[in-house]
């Protein structure tokens, strides 16, 4: 356990104390205690910039399950550090914001901050894990905490729906990703990402390469809300706004992007990788921006905008893979795509974070997020307006904000596709810049809608729940910090290039970055570059579309709701629900007799088929002990007792006969000199007979209820005889052939020397196979509590009805 491990686990540790702090200090907002941690962690991770910018990395190992090569191996390089800084930095701002957003009187702050810290620790684990299985564990933790946070207001039906949807979709992807990880581990005989990268050539040639890649990409696409899995993100907006700003725009949804970036060195040689990621990214980019325009909820716009921006980053990462095929070029133009992806990732976190917080302020101070009700808020909330303008213009790609720079670089990357002559890019690749440009027009459009529909126009105060006013200062601090970062990174982009972008890019493209690679982001590329004219075109067409919005909005009505992806999702869920209900209604009839028929039929068939199918049946009476008079008498007693049970007239007789059979069996144990078994069997028979007597004492007599008397059924007879015969045959066969030496001699020898006991049975129970006993008594305990709960619950329910 190194200090790095403590850092990753510190949010989990603090989460344990949060409920305590909440209870003890009711007058202080719990958020203040939580706030300290991300700030400390942020400062801690800042120190690593020195390490990674000089090209070094840090690796700390801790074993977890060494026999399976699973460990919590933490690895800090440029990419991991960038994400760690985002997680802790945005995390600090979000916690600060939440202190003012969530009231300490009415909200369940103890739960909220536990979930939030759980997420923070898990996300740090995802981006710092070098071991794939460790990464997977943290990955699912982020899905889980996201589920809990979306469902935070669990009294709302929409919250529960959104939480379930996000969990189902992301965990489905996570599971397939685990499959991909296992395949990777199988191909490379290790789960360490770094070791896998070093053998990327062998893995590329392996037949499992493509399946593993597809499975892992499914995980990345579901997590990062890529088309067609994006449908969970808009519903996740039911979460409190700080959560939306943190998980569903700045960090968690970027885990998929992280994964793609992290595994690029392994998979990027493949043409499928390049095509799939860039195409899915572009489709998502277009569909997200197109759908954002029709939204009327502020957070809905932001959700679709996040989807589209994630698609943008994804497509850039996909195109960045092209750089691998041009290793000889001195000026590798395809590196620009990867640089743009990383740069936009940072920019997106800043402007989208500030926009979410501004939307939260509007919601908090007016009581609604519906842009049809909002409007004319500018005189009431000038600071929030300024923040929204900065964030929105940056998102639209206007100078001098950072979004402009990354949008230019994005266009550069897309235009470069035209020069690409691998994987048939020269044919369909033409579409790339076209789609990118159209999507950017819509991006511009929804950014304008977000800003101007909310703050300008006629104020409709009568439709608002509260009288609008500016938010308290504390709530404004976080978005102001983010907005000033938007401007700072816009004017001085090279602040980031050497410290964060270069190390991150070199983690994604380790081979290329070796030969003296430097990032320089410039503001002005000259008049006659396609990027500049594309931007000017975006602004011009965007303004026209905005002004004529009401005239062409009808096209959104063409695609009916019935055929949407959401309807498909709901249809799948309800169909599965109906199917499983129909199935269980059919099978679970509630009659114990039917269940016994299932159990014994399966028993009979499985054992019988495997006994004869595997050729295990054999009869040999060579080495049996001589049969004495006592054995014969006891056997007769057993047979007579068993048969008489069938003809017993009353329950009491049946129970006593059953007891007699049990006692006879224990006499057999006495004959075979197994005192422990005999003793146990005797006591168990005594107790169970007493128990049955106690149970049945109050029940009506058999004769008084005719229908209780079983009629003879052929199928039941076949099943019961069959089970008996199969068991007898198995017992005889196992006696007839000894494939292995008996283990009993080992126990006899070692019982005294190793365990210091003379009763071998007991030594086996408490020592050699003690873990079995441990779990057996656990099961016993669970069974007893189950019986207690079932009977007691039924009793109380009956009492309630009376």
């Amino acid at each position, binding site marked *: 356990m190194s200090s790095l491990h403590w850092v990753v686990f510190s949010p989990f540790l603090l989460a344990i104390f949060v409920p305590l702090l909440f209870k003890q200090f009711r007058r202080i907002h719990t958020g203040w205690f939580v706030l300290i941690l991300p700030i400390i962690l942020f400062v801690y991770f800042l120190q690593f910039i020195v390490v990674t910018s000089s090209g070094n990395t840090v690796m700390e190992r801790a074993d977890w399950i060494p026999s399976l090569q699973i460990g919590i191996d933490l690895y800090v390089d440029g990419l991991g550090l960038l994400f760690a800084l985002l997680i802790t930095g945005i995390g600090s701002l979000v916690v600060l914001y939440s202190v003012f957003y969530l009231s300490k009187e009415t909200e369940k702050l103890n739960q909220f901050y536990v979930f939030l810290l759980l997420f923070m620790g898990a996300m740090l684990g995802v981006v710092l894990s070098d071991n794939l299985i460790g990464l997977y564990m943290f990955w699912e933790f982020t899905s889980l905490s996201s589920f809990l946070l979306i469902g935070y207001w669990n009294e709302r039906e929409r919250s529960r729906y959104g939480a379930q949807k996000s969990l189902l979709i992301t965990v489905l992807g996570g599971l397939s990703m685990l499959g991909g990880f296992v395949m990777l581990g199988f191909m490379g005989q290790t789960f360490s990402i770094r070791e896998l990268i070093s053998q990327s050539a062998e893995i590329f040639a392996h037949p499992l390469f493509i399946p593993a890649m597809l499975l892992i990409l499914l995980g990345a696409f579901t997590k990062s809300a890529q088309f067609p899995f994006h449908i969970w993100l808009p519903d996740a907006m039911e979460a409190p706004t700080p959560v939306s700003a943190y998980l569903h725009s700045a960090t968690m949804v970027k885990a998929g992007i992280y994964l793609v970036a992290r595994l690029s060195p392994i998979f990027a040689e493949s043409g499928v990788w390049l095509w799939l990621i860039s195409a899915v990214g572009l489709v998502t980019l277009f569909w997200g921006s197109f759908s954002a325009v029709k939204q009327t909820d502020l957070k809905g716009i932001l959700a679709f905008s996040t989807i589209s921006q994630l698609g943008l980053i994804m497509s850039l990462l996909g195109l960045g893979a092209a750089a691998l095929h041009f290793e000889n070029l001195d000026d590798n133009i395809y590196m620009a795509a990867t640089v743009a992806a990383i740069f936009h990732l940072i920019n997106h976190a800043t402007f989208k974070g500030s926009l979410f917080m501004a939307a939260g302020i509007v919601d908090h101070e007016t009581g609604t997020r519906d842009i049809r009700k909002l409007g004319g808020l500018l005189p009431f909330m000038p600071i929030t307006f300024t923040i929204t303008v900065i964030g929105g213009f940056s998102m639209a790609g206007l100078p001098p904000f950072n979004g402009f720079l990354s949008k230019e670089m994005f266009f550069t990357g897309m235009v470069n596709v035209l020069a690409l002559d691998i994987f048939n890019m020269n044919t369909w690749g033409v579409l790339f810049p076209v789609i990118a440009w159209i999507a950017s027009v819509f991006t511009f459009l929804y950014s304008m809608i977000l800003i101007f529909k909310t703050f300008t126009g006629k104020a409709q105060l009568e439709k608002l729940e509260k009288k609008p006013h500016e938010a308290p200062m504390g709530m404004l601090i976080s978005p102001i910090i983010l907005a000033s970062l938007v401007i700072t990174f816009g004017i001085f982009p090279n602040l980031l290039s050497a410290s964060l972008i270069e190390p991150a890019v070199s983690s994604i493209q380790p081979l290329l970055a070796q030969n003296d690679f430097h990032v320089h982001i410039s503001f002005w590329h000259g008049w006659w570059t396609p990027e500049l004219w594309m931007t000017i075109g975006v602004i011009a067409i965007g303004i026209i579309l905005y002004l004529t919005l009401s005239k062409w909005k009808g096209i959104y009505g063409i695609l009916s709701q019935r055929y949407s992806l959401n309807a498909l999702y709901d249809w799948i869920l309800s169909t599965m629900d109906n199917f499983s209900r129909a199935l269980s209604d059919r099978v679970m009839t509630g009659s114990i007799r039917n269940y016994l028929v299932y159990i014994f039929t399966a028993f009979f068939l499985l054992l019988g088929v495997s006994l004869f199918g595997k050729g295990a049946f054999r009869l040999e009476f060579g080495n049996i002990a001589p049969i004495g008079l006592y054995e014969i008498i006891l056997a007769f007693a057993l047979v007579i007792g068993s048969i008489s049970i069938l003809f017993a007239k009353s329950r009491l007789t049946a129970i006593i006969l059953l007891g007699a059979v049990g006692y006879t069996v224990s006499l057999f144990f006495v004959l075979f000199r197994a005192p422990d078994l005999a*003793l146990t069997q005797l006591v168990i028979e005594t107790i169970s007979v*007493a128990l049955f007597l106690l149970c049945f004492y109050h029940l009506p007599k058999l004769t008084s209820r005719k229908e209780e008397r079983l009629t003879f059924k052929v199928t039941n007879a076949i099943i019961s005889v069959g089970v008996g015969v199969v068991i007898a045959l198995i017992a005889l066969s196992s006696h007839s052939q000894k494939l292995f030496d008996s283990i009993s001699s080992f126990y006899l020898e070692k019982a005294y020397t190793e365990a210091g006991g003379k009763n071998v049975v007991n030594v086996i129970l408490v020592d050699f196979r003690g873990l079995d006993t441990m779990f057996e008594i656990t099961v*016993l305990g669970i069974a007893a509590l189950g019986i207690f709960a079932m009977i007691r619950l039924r009793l109380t329910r009956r009492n309630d009805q009376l």
Partner: protein
Amino acid sequence: MKNDLILQTVTKVAVFIILLFSISIFFGGHYSPGGGFVGGLMTSAAIVLLLLAYDLNTVAKILPVDYKIMIATGLLISALTVAGGAIFDVPLMTHAYKYFDLPILGHTSLHTAVLFDLGVYLVVVGVTMTIIQTIGEDE
């Protein structure tokens, strides 16, 4: 069942004998037939005998024990004994034992296995009695 004088008189004596015997075979388990499982069952048998001779309420008055807590206690003791290995950095379930010469008992071995077995004993008694009690109360 309310007026079984003979059964009740015999029970008064027999219960103690059964209980003592059950404790004896519980402790002797490591060297002669017996152990926590049989010991626990036999203790339950003694209590069941009481239940048959008297009724649930009387027995609950004589032995005011919450058997569910007994299950939990037993599981905890066993689990801690198993986990003890982790503290001493040996494989789980490793038992320690030593022989002592004690005053009345003479040459005796003290064995951590008996702690584990104590857990088993408590769980078995707890489980049996919980089941019998709940079913008995449910009429």
